[in-house]
């Protein structure tokens, strides 16, 4: 099957044309804290993009194992930003309607910023647990640590400029 050229161009537009200079050296993978769990590796993910393999590049666990630590980006000898590639692929996948617990977490996060201007962790967690009940044990453990120390925000603070924030998200998202 020939590669999806349109997909490749979209990745280049979002993550930078320097991607074309990747030499597949694997420095990014060697730097990555979650490399062990990634399949495809971050190096291979770059290759998949360049080959226009949209399906493989956007449907994998790798995107969601990236912690955004930017070590790959600091180290790449070609000045490529592998983390930006991950972000671009998440974006493309989310636009195409990708569902899943990880995508849902990002969606709820952005929705909260849109609605309140800020993040209220309790409300965010509650929403997330509805789509991923398996996270309940960890949330309980955290709650037991944080609640008695007064570190859970029970009320949601809303900023004044909510309309502006909403506009930022909705307008710039299209660009």
């Amino acid at each position: 099957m020939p590669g999806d050229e349109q997909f490749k161009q979209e990745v280049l537009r979002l993550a930078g044309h320097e991607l074309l200079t990747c030499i597949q050296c694997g420095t990014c993978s060697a730097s990555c804290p979650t490399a062990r769990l990634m399949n495809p590796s971050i190096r291979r993910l770059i290759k998949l993009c360049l080959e226009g393999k949209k399906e493989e590049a956007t449907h994998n666990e790798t995107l969601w194992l990236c912690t955004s630590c930017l070590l790959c980006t600091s180290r790449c000898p070609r000045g490529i930003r592998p983390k930006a590639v991950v972000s671009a692929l998440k974006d493309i996948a989310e636009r195409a309607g990708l569902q899943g617990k990880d995508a849902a977490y990002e969606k709820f996060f952005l929705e909260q910023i849109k609605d309140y201007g800020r993040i209220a962790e309790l409300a965010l967690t509650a929403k997330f647990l509805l789509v991923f009940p398996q996270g309940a044990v960890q949330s309980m453990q955290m709650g037991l640590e944080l609640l008695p120390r007064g570190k859970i925000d029970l009320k949601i603070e809303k900023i004044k400029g909510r309309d502006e924030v909403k506009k930022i998200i909705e307008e710039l998202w299209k660009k």
Partner: protein
Amino acid sequence: MKLAYYPGCVSKSTGKEMDASTRAVSAALGIELVELPDWNCCGATHVSHELVATGLAARNMAQTNLPIMTACSICYSNLRAAAQRLEEPETLEKVNAVLDRKYSSAYSSAKIRHALDVILEALTEGDERIVVPLKELRVAPYYGCLLTRPQGVYSPQFPTILENLIKRLQAVPVDFRLKTFCCGGPIFMPQEKAADDIAFKILAEAKKAGAEVIVTVCPLCHLMLDAKQKVLEQKMGEKIGIPILYVTQLVGIALGLGPEELGLFMNSVSPMAMMERVYARLSE
């Protein structure tokens, strides 16, 4: 010195002690903080669309002409990355088209300051305000990822600013191999196991290095190493028992500020035994 202050969302929840200690230490060092009037979330690591993330950061930066100080490495990284991107005229134009108050191209990433660097600048060598020198205290300097990335004033792999500050407090920085390694925090909700493994590695390494305390500059690192420490110990079957302090809390102790002011009772792993050792060494 007068700076705009960006507390970040965690200042209202899991990072309350970060906020409290930042304000207390700043006051003690004569750093005047003016909170940004209507700040919004920076998007943390969860807004994958770069232009949206840039817009969110730009709205914060457009609220002041003063340099902005934050104690959160994630906010710091996001504001800096955004200021760098806003140097491109095309990005600036797109972003300003949706902002009420425009981002000025006169602003720059150099105006974004981490509390760590502001504090180090304010403290002189042998500063008399250090009334509780942290003699012999073995401190693991944990940078995590985002203080030094994207590349700014610090080396992304071999930074030394935390060690410099630790020494200025008369404590001893331990040789800590994983100091710029990620804590796993950004994926801890949806990818619990992966995040736990990474965080535990850091704790175990600090213990091996003989640290009496780990100092952090990021609320997510703090959450992973402090609030989760007990659970991680149970899961991995190894006792760690190392207190995790925000850098502002450590500085505050050296400045003789009280535990209440520094939010020390909010830490999960109590630093009180460590503090007793500090005081005991003082009178030696």
